């Protein structure tokens, strides 16, 4: 493939790197935020970042048919993530409720 220091800029590479950067942003905010909702958002951004890496890896440049297997993985991941998010939000609301009560 392309030599490492000066790779040709392709959409695949750009979104690959953006996905990696998203993983970094999400991990940082997930670790430093004390707000439950922000942490759940960070989990979502983290998942999208990893999905972006998958989708970019499936791409073979313009005109070529992309690999469907990573696409299927990401599709499954999106649905599982919304289920996890709903469950986490229910937990967060419950924690918020009990926390507010104990402060009184």
């Amino acid at each position, binding site marked *: 493939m392309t030599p490492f220091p000066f790779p040709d800029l392709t959409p695949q590479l750009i979104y690959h790197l953006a996905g990696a950067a998203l993983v970094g942003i999400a991990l940082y905010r997930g670790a430093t935020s004390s707000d439950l909702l922000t942490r*759940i958002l960070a989990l979502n951004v983290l998942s999208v970042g990893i999905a972006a890496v998958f989708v970019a890896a499936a791409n073979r440049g313009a005109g070529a048919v992309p690999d469907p297997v990573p696409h299927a993985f*990401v599709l499954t991941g*999106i649905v599982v993530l919304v289920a996890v998010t709903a469950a986490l939000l229910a937990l967060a609301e419950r924690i918020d409720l009990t926390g507010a009560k104990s402060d009184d």
Partner: protein
Amino acid sequence: MIVFDLMLAAAILVAGWSALSAPDRTGAIAGFLVFGLLVALSWVRLDAPDVALAEAAIGSGLTGALMLRAAGRMAPPAADRVPRAQRAAAALLACGLAGGLAVAVMDLPGATIVYDPLVRADLGQSGVSNPVTAVLLNFRAWDTLLEMAVLLAALVLVAALGPRGTPRPARLGPLYTPFLRIMAPLSVLVAGHLLWLGATAPGGAFQAGAVLCGGLLALYFGGALRPAAVPAGPLWALCAAGVAVFAAAALAAEVLTGTLLAYPDGADKIWILAIEGGLTVSIGATLLLLFTGLRQGGARA
């Protein structure tokens, strides 16, 4: 077009950061919605329309709706109280991991061509010509079956933890009912179309289920649909229908062909469509109830 890709990638990063650093919840969730739609656009650029559809409808739209509902119920966020040292350590670790991922990605293209030839060789026997649907409902149908079980498990948790009795949504303006008369039937039509289309083109049970959920949510906000007024039994049956149909098909295939989830030769498309039909209804109902919540114990609560 490379300039467009660079700008889109930059916009995705800015939207992602603003979703995670906005001081107020509404701003953060608005950032997240923009982020999800931009990501969906970038996946269209990467020739992944199936995934882009699901991200726009479920990953961005429905998740954003869930977040907004939760934000309305929770106290405003407290300021971050994380020590500077922990912040620096987190930044260092996050940068290291992101950098490692970026470098590892550079020589990834060689590693992804593992399954692709297998899919291409067997696509003709899968009963459908959209390779993503073939992977989801035929080659790796086991994953999708378990995914439906995950959705059901999440609903059980939400029903167990959520507040008792969902409040009626506030009345919307006089134009809402005429809007609903067009939108609700249209969402059923689009869902059916996406379901049928999934065999040959981008689409399928998950996108169809998400659209169906959108139509149901519109009815819910119009006051025409009240999940709390329906006995819990039929609602649970509707939500479990996807797993039930899928599991029944898996066992029937085991009896007919001797292999779990190996559909009889030549009849693949009928099996896939029947399973997907069950999945669509079930996904639509489950996603709706994840949003509205379920009243526990039916009339007793």
